[in-house]
């Protein structure tokens, strides 16, 4: 059962990427009730879900400022005790990656770079969240004319995707 829970959490982290944060958090929410320290983790998850949904709704109505504000709050929120560090990392990295894209779309290249660096500073792993951050940093670097560094980021992201592919095909 422990292995199954571990697999479930890993799969949930995969599912959290690319705008699926809201639904992913919905799935993770019951785990918060397993924490021994009471309602704090639950509140964190609820707040993260609310902020993620608010960002998506703002993007849908074209309100870039509100989208950025919601993602900034979500990315910067420190997790309370009781939330596993790796779970908090993927929630915040997903938010930072979306924040970087939103800021870039708003013309704030520097702000986008700060967001992507902050996301990577939370820890690089061979998972989809790190790969997404590296891909986005590659795009920002390429847009800034830093082609060689961009190619390095793309290549690192590619090797992570390749490792994930091996797992998806059951090769390891």
């Amino acid at each position: 059962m422990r292995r199954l829970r571990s697999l479930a959490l890993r799969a949930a982290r995969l599912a959290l990427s690319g705008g699926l944060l809201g639904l992913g958090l919905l799935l993770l929410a019951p785990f918060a009730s397993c924490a021994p320290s009471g309602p704090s983790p639950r509140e964190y998850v609820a707040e993260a879900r609310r902020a993620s949904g608010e960002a998506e709704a703002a993007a849908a109505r074209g309100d870039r400022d509100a989208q950025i504000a919601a993602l900034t709050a979500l990315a910067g929120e420190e997790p309370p005790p009781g939330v596993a560090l790796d779970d908090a990392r993927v929630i915040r990295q997903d938010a930072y990656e979306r924040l970087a894209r939103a800021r870039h779309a708003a013309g704030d290249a520097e702000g986008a770079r700060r967001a992507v660096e902050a996301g990577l500073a939370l820890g690089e792993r061979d998972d989809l969240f790190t790969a997404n951050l590296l891909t986005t940093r590659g795009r920002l670097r390429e847009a800034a004319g830093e082609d060689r560094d961009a190619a390095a980021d793309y290549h690192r992201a590619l090797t992570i995707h390749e490792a994930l592919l091996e797992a998806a095909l059951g090769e390891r």
Partner: protein
Amino acid sequence: MTRHDKLSFGIASLLLLAALGPGCGGAAMRPGEHVEPERDNPVDLDAEQVERVEELDRALASPEADCASACALGDAICDLEARICGIAQRHPEDEATHARCEDAGGRCEGARSRIAERCACDAPPPG
């Protein structure tokens, strides 16, 4: 939502539901409930154990591919390869980027052929 966005969402939901089934404490079985009577014949138990181990071996030997994820990851790999090689084309003097392009090309091709052995992916969207 792109195919990449959908990555593993279905399997994530199923695994989470399966993991949450017994609840946080785990104890779903109530006293007095048994799926079948306890057996105490060691010969029967041995035979059952051998059968279960063989089942496990078969399952581990041919794990089912997660084709939705594999197809999305294959697209991502080859998209990144195209980006790297686009940069290499713009910088013919940059040997490091050319080496990355060549390496990425092999990985993209390898990914496509490995995926094709196990999965039938839709054609990637144009552009």
